[in-house]
Every structure is written in C-alpha cells, then in structure tokens.
C-alpha cells in the first residue's frame, strides 16, 4: 500500500472515530451529513485550532464541552445577508403572494434560519404585501447559538449591495425603514422581531410540529447526504398543507426524493413547488 493511500485511510478512520465519539458523548449525529462538506469544514477547524489530526480534535472535544460548542459553530454556515437571493424574493412576491391573499390565515415555516437574515427578509416582504396581520412566521434551526443571535434581531449593518438586493427583490420602501443603526449593527424593528416565533428544531431528528401553508427551506439540505436529505423531505412533506408551497434553494430539487410526484413546480420561480397530493 502506498503512503498516499495509507494516510488517506488513516484520516478516514480518525474521522469515523471522531463522529462516533461526538454522537455518543453529545448526541449530535453528523454521520449522515454531506461528507465532502463536513470534511472541509472540519479541516478548516483543525487549522484554526492549530491541531494536526482528527484524533487530536477528538481528544479535545470529548473532554471539553466548550470545544464541542466551538466545533458546532465551525460546522454552521456563516451568516448570510438580507435578501441575498433577490430573484427568489421577487418570484415569491410575484407568484406565491397572490395565491396567499386568498387564505384567511397563513402559517409560514422557515427551516434552517441560521442567524435569521433571510427570516427578517421574509417578514419584511410579508409585511409589505399586507399579509403580516394574518400570518404566523415560525423560524427554526438546529443550533441554539444561532437561534439566540436570530432572536436578538441584531444583524450586521446592511450595505449598499443589500439595499440594491432589497430593491431588486421588489422592495417598496427603503431597507433602512426596518432597522435602527447601532454602530456597525442593525437592530431590526420590534414589530418584525416580535412577530417571528424562533424555535429550536433539528430537521435531521425532530418530527414535524405543525401544518404550514408555506415552508421555506433553502440551501439547508445541502449539508446532508442523500439519505438524510430524503428523510428530511419526508418531514417537509408532512408539514405542508395540501396546496401549500415548498421553497427550495436555486439548485435543489424534489426530483430525486420519494415525494417528486406530490409536487408541481411553479414555472420560472427557481424551485418553488406546490404540494398537489
């Protein structure tokens, strides 16, 4: 066996042991996460912690809960910007909102809200479209740390590009109307903050907790491997009311899930689906 294969196999063994240790000690099961992404984030974490091997990281994480917190933070996706994908918000406004207007009440679930930027963007959109009074917006994430950031309503101060994205997303006012500036931070308006129900929920393990007319789950399932993503789709399907809307990321699809036949894609919306069965 060559040196190259040997060291690759050793690293892969160390990775298995680390994931098994994390699961048994802390209950976080990362084994079904997308392996290439997981490995990349873990290697970056190793470099930042100045460690040489996954074994060394395993030793530290098993003996020190704070090191485990650090690991989980390293695995989370870094904060996004408000309206970072204007095309989606634009399509949502044009194609989904008119149908939502006919509903007496609307429950919306934003899955994998992270530190909340896109949840606030969604809230702004619903408010501008006059749907806010009959809307309940739930936002969930597996990470309690990110959720508390989201709940605080304090985001990085939007810049010119964010303001441009907001306009491109069909914004009707000025983005600055929705927050007050505090140094380099933006404190979101209390009406937005208080109207969002942030709740801890792990799509990988937790059951569906309500029935929704809209489920927004964009780029969240990228972190999972195919079998876990498939199970997550089961949760999403169970959580959607009939004729409800499922909003995925621009490069995500229901095509390879068991629920492909239950959805119809809305044309030219960049992956907004309607549950039809």
């Amino acid at each position, binding site marked *: 066996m060559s040196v190259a294969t040997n060291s690759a196999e050793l690293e892969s063994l160390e990775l298995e042991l680390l994931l098994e240790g994390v699961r048994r000690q802390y209950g976080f099961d990362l084994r079904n996460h997308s392996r290439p992404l997981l490995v990349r984030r873990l290697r970056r974490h190793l470099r930042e912690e100045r460690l040489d091997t996954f074994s060394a990281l395993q030793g530290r994480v098993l003996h020190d809960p704070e090191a485990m917190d650090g690991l989980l933070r390293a695995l989370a996706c870094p904060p996004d910007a408000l309206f970072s994908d204007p095309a989606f918000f634009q399509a949502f406004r044009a194609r989904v909102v008119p149908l939502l207007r006919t509903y007496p009440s609307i429950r919306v679930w934003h899955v994998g809200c992270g530190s909340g930027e896109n949840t606030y963007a969604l809230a702004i959109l619903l408010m501008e479209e006059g749907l806010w009074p009959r809307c309940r917006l739930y936002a969930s994430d597996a990470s309690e740390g990110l959720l508390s950031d989201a709940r605080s309503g304090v985001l990085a101060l939007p810049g010119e590009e964010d303001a441009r994205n907001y306009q491109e997303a069909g914004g009707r006012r000025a983005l600055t109307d929705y927050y007050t500036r505090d140094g380099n931070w933006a404190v979101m308006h209390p009406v937005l903050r208080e109207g969002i129900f942030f709740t801890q929920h792990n799509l990988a393990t937790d059951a569906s907790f309500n029935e929704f007319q809209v489920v927004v789950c964009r780029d969240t*399932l990228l972190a999972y491997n*195919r079998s876990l993503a498939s199970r997550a789709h089961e949760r999403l399907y169970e959580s959607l009311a009939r004729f409800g809307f499922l909003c995925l990321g621009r*490069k995500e699809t229901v095509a390879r899930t068991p629920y492909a036949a239950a959805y119809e894609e809305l044309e030219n919306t960049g992956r907004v689906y309607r549950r039809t069965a």
Partner: protein
Amino acid sequence: MSLLGLLVVGAPRGASEELEALLASLPSSLPVPVVLVFHRGVQEALAGSLGRRCPLPIAEPDDKEELVAGRVYLAPAGYHLLVDRDSVCLSREPAEHGQRPAIDPLFESAADAYGPSAVGLLFSGHEDGWAGVAALSARGGRAAVICEGGAVEGVERVPLSEVKPWLARLSYAPRMKVQA
C-alpha cells in the same frame, strides 16, 4: 496504478477562451465525468457559451446529482461545487480566494473521493487551485497545470495543445506511478 475515474478542471476568469478550446478538444467517448469550476460572476449564464464546441453535454448540476461518464458538470454561480464518490455536492460556504465557485474545494474533494483515479487540470493565472493540485498529487492522483512557458516548481505542466494526447494516455493505458 489505477484507472482514470474523474477529471476535474479549474479555470480563472481570464482563461475562458482556452477553457472553451479545451472543452472542444475532449474526446466524445471520454470514459469519465468532467467536473469544472470557472471563476464567474453571479448573473452569467455560461453552460451554453462555454460548451458551444464541446462534444459532451454540459450542464450546471443540481445538488446531489449523480455523476455520469461523458458529461460535463459546470459549477453554478454562487455555489462551490464538490464531489463525493458518485455525485456532486453544492455548498454555500463563503468565497475562497475571493471566488465562489472556487477551484480548491473541487480539487480537494476529488482527491478525497477518488484518490489515485482523480485527474486535475488547472489553468494558471490565479492563486486559487494550487492547493487543490497539491492535494490531488498527495493522494496519488495526477494533476497538471496548463501553461506554455515558465517551469513550475514540482508541478507537472502541459501546453494546451498537448492536453488531448496527455488525457488520451491517461484514459486508455494503465499508467505507471514513478513516485511511491
């Protein structure tokens, strides 16, 4: 010694014409998937223009799409494109070397997933991709930088005009490893 399993290609923005020429020169019976990162802007629709003269079908894959031999997978704007054993994985991680998609994530994931059967070609002109070339070599794969002049330390280089025979040698003959 092992057979070719995957070809990864990385190209900075300045190399679009050379990249088009490379894609045009790929054999229509290429027995492996080709995965491609080109430094691109957010709004560009590229698959059509880059693949104009390419004999293989070229498309921007969805997340977790299966890799099929004889197809070209182009990284979509705004996402890193990585590979697993038989499928692509997209990621919204931050830009690397100022780029998203970036070349290093693709090359390094190819080195992990395909080891000695991964082959990488990098167009020079940007700092992104060199770590990936090193990772491919470290895992026993074959990697070369496409450039005309100027020796590059420790890295194989191939002129664009020689890429076709270079690839043909790799795809059709079991290759000998010189280094252990």
